[in-house]
């Protein structure tokens, strides 16, 4: 069996809801049946085969080729299987995914991995605001799994995050880990203003120096035994996070946000 490949024929003006095209919903369907699925596009519904050229038949290994930034909800509620996207993707990539792997080879839009529950979401390019966050009005963002971004990330990454890990090789915008309930966000690049704003618990781990907000207090430099274990859990990733040279256990610890319950922490790598 070869991967089920959906190659986009032409680009539309309206955004497309790609949520019906997830591995578990496609299981057992023939290419003809998949072609007949209707996608919401603005006010209209369009058939998959009118938008994509369909090749291959392995529904558990889905490739979306020639993608662009108006394809939303790719991998929504994914339950197993793998989705690979060649080209940019729109908003809500991997929203509420429950298991499996999503690999976006270029940039992703807003709310990637929002309210994700389990699995691996890898973005090779940049990601927009609210990565791994909660949807507006909801109280819990990402609840498990791992998000790896090789590029830069926008603002409010991990907003209301509850559990799991967000790994960012590049820079991250302002309010990283805002209102975080628990979990881990690790950033190798620069961090914007107000990291950990109103965070309750959880860990923000930075490779570069950060300006800790006024509501975080310096707890000193420490050797923390859990860090090597955390790094070893990244060993299976195709990432700088998996490199032994990146492992460290000496950090400067800032506790906060003391305007909230103050049980969170910002850890900054010490040379």
């Amino acid at each position: 069996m070869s991967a089920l490949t959906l190659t986009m024929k032409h680009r539309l003006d309206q955004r497309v809801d790609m949520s019906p095209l997830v591995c578990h919903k496609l299981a057992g369907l023939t290419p003809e049946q998949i072609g007949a699925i209707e996608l919401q596009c603005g006010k209209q519904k369009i058939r998959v085969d009118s938008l994509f050229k369909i090749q291959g038949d392995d529904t558990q290994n889905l490739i979306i080729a020639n993608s662009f930034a108006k394809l939303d909800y790719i991998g929504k509620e994914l339950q197993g299987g793998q989705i690979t996207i060649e080209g940019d993707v729109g908003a809500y990539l991997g929203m509420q995914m429950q298991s499996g792997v999503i690999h976006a080879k270029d940039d992703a839009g807003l709310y990637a991995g929002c309210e994700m529950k389990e699995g691996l979401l890898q973005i090779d390019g940049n990601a927009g605001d609210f990565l791994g966050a909660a949807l507006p009005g909801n109280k819990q963002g990402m609840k498990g799994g791992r998000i790896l971004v090789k590029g830069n990330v926008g603002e409010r990454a991990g907003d209301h995050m509850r559990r799991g890990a967000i790994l960012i090789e590049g820079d991250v915008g302002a309010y990283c880990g805002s209102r975080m309930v628990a979990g881990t966000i690790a950033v190798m690049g620069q961090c914007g203003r107000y990291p950990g704003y109103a965070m309750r618990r959880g860990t923000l781990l930075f490779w570069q120096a950060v300006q800790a907000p006024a509501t975080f207090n310096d707890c000193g430099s420490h050797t923390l035994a859990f860090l090597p274990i955390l790094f070893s859990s990244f060993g299976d990733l195709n990432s700088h996070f998996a490199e032994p040279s990146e492992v460290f256990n000496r950090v400067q610890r800032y506790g906060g946000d003391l305007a909230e319950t103050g049980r969170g922490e910002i850890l900054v790598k010490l040379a």
Partner: protein
Amino acid sequence: MIINGVTIDQTFAEAFPMKATRAIITAQNEKWAMISAQAMTGFATSVIACGCEAGIERVLSPSETPDGRPGVSILIFAMGGKGLAKQLETRAGQCVLTSPTSALFAGIDEGKQIPLGKNLRYFGDGFQISKKINGKRYWRVPVMDGEFLAEATTAQVGAVGGGNFLVLAESQPQALAACEAAIEEMRKIPNVIMPFPGGVVRSGSKVGSKYPALGASTNDAFCPTLKGVTQTDLSPEIESVMEIVIDGLTKEDIDQAMRVGIQAVCDMGAEQGIKRISAGNYGGKLGPFHFHLQEIMA
């Protein structure tokens, strides 16, 4: 059966089912991991009065431990799951949590989960931090030397306790030397511990006593000073008997430990005063696992 002049009795050791778990203690260096492990496995020679039987299984190199530091693996055995959980938690709290630079991890993953650091976290008084990494939950408890890191749970498995053999010698020093040689070899076997002091017990017991309050009492048939006044199992030249007790995760583990231990004793031979190998056999009253000496050494 005679090996190197040592008679192997046609008898068997009786053992009984237990519950067991393994824990891994790490520290800044092997010295402090060992100190913590020795404290945690102290006063754990027999379930008769200690609540559990525990011992050090082996030293672990940094590459074998979860946090990449030197470590020691220990095994704890108890008669039931509740007793095991209570002993594990109490000992971890008093002996590992308190030990400088220590961390505590599960040594067995598969099986019924019992608390390891799950309840010790409350020592953190609300400042404790949970981290779930690769499906395992860890607790970071702030303590005065930094952080105590403990895995939340470890697994309880079925096990076998009370495997044993007796070394009968012409003198006390010869019996002890033979037992020391046996213990040195047996400690190389995984999944077993010899819980008595130095692995050797000189006060082997029989089931029951003339005193109703006691469930066990001295094994008078193997006491050399009673040869003339009780129904003895000793020949006139035997002056000292020592016992090695083995707890293992499986019957096969105990088989292997007994084999290498008895062989080490027999290697010393009759020339060095070792006359017989026997075993604690209580006529089937003690337990369902029978270790026949001659079958093991065949």
